């Protein structure tokens, strides 16, 4: 009976909105207990528990959920939108970044304000980051996600690049990370840069289909390293350092590489297009892939 009552209560509180900012971009909901208030500068401060409690920033396409969290939401001003200023999560939490949600919110805002509607993104990117504990601190155009404990990342991307359609999944695990995000970037992957300390494991699977054909070209990249540096803002590189091993296949070829440093260069659609291995010694193999897709 007690369990049933708890379930009914949890269902009732699911989606219960605590706070919504004037632009309806920021929403705090799903709480069972909450307390907080406003600060002198108009920011909204809260501590809450839920099943899970959720803070959503639609313009950023970002949602953070956890059974327990505390944070501050910056109030919107005539010149800046509201945003998540700080958030601390304990007891297990998840960050979801979805550029389709962000794009729809940006379209809604443009229509409301009578400003030009931004161009639609060519791909839908959804990333989830899970860890027992993490903290987010942000501004109107950038944010830093600090993860002091083991975490996992899953990323799915699907869309068009040139005359090809593609689907790509990426999974990664690490021990700690500091990730720089630009959640407000229109139509772009919000991860800008970051460092991950390991051991780090990384896996990227991609399927590309040329327009007019039905047979996709499959590729896969697996990597392990002591740590990883990500730079997607300018160089578009993922640099794996220390005891690096990468393996994978692309189309008809498969290979492995080992070295001190492996730099994976990505194209605009986040496709790995070049792998450079350095170290003393390095060891690489490349051979034709057997029919049936074995590695």
């Amino acid at each position, binding site marked *: 009976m007690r369990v049933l009552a708890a379930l009914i209560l949890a269902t009732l*509180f699911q989606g*219960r*909105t*605590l*706070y*919504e*900012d*004037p*632009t*309806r971009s*920021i929403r705090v909901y799903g*709480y*069972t*207990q*909450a*307390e*907080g*208030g*406003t*600060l*002198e500068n*108009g920011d*909204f401060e809260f501590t809450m*528990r839920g099943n899970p409690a959720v803070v959503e920033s639609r313009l950023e396409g970002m949602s953070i959920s956890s059974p327990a969290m505390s944070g501050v939401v910056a*109030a*919107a*001003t005539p010149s800046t939108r*509201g945003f998540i200023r700080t958030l601390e999560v304990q007891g297990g939490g998840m960050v979801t970044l979805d550029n389709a949600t962000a794009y729809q919110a940006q379209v809604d805002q443009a229509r409301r304000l009578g400003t030009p509607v931004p161009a639609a993104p060519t791909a839908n990117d959804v990333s989830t980051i899970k860890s027992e504990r993490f903290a987010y601190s942000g501004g109107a155009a950038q944010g830093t996600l600090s993860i002091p404990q083991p975490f996992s990342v899953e990323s799915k991307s699907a869309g068009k690049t040139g005359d090809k359609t593609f689907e790509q999944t990426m999974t990664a695990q690490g021990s700690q990370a500091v990730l720089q995000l630009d959640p407000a970037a229109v139509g772009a992957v919000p991860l800008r840069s970051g460092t991950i300390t390991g051991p780090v494991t990384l896996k990227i699977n991609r399927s590309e289909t040329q327009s007019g054909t039905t047979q996709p070209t499959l590729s896969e990249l697996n990597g392990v390293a002591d740590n990883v540096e990500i730079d997607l803002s300018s160089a578009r590189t993922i640099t794996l350092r220390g005891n690096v091993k990468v393996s994978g296949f692309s189309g008809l070829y498969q290979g492995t590489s080992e070295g001190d440093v492996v730099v994976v260069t990505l194209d605009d659609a986040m496709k790995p297009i070049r792998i450079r291995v350095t170290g003393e010694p390095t060891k690489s193999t490349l051979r034709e892939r057997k029919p049936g897709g074995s590695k």
Partner: protein
Amino acid sequence: MILPALIVAQSVFSYSDAKGDLSIRAKDGQGALSTTGYEFDLMGSVTITSKQRQFVLTASRVKASIVKSAGSESPNELKKATASGGTRIVQTASGKSSRLQANTATYTTQGSGATVRASGSVRIVNIDQNKRETMTATGSSGTARLDPKSPRGISAATLNGPVRVEIVQSGGTASRVVFTGSKMTLSGSQVSLTGNVKASGAGASRFGNLSNVDSVTVTLNERGEFSRFTFRSGGG
């Protein structure tokens, strides 16, 4: 003993004590001498003004008891009044004032101030030195403690609901925050609401919407404006 001068209904009723501390006007009125002062039954545009206690009471009908305060030659203090029909009490304090409106109200002097029990469309309004209404609270019934020595005239109040409290936000005359709930308690510079409390920004306010909250406590600044609030919900 009935006062001959007041027993006959008058076209304009007027009373003032010897020093002019208390003045009473009404379209019609009658009265009787009591052991401590006068008992008045006043009708039509009743206005009772106390310079000493810095309040003005207006209503359509008022039954009032006035008594002599220490050192006064004639009754100069409103001891009790039962007012009905568009009742308004404006209590001034240090240049600021508070206005209480209700269908009916009972005013009872207590110490240097008074207690008012009000019912029917009760409204409490805080007014600053510039005649700006900084807070408007409405409810179906309530009580208020009038005190000319308090910062805003009303030092404490309760309103029963549903209640609605609109407060000007600090730093912006066009910004307001509207709170609703089941009950409001005012104590000094703190306004507390309980029972399914909601808050929403109005006008140019940057505050959005807060909902489904058990209790909210608003802190007013020295100008009587909303400066910040705290909330609590769930967890017993």
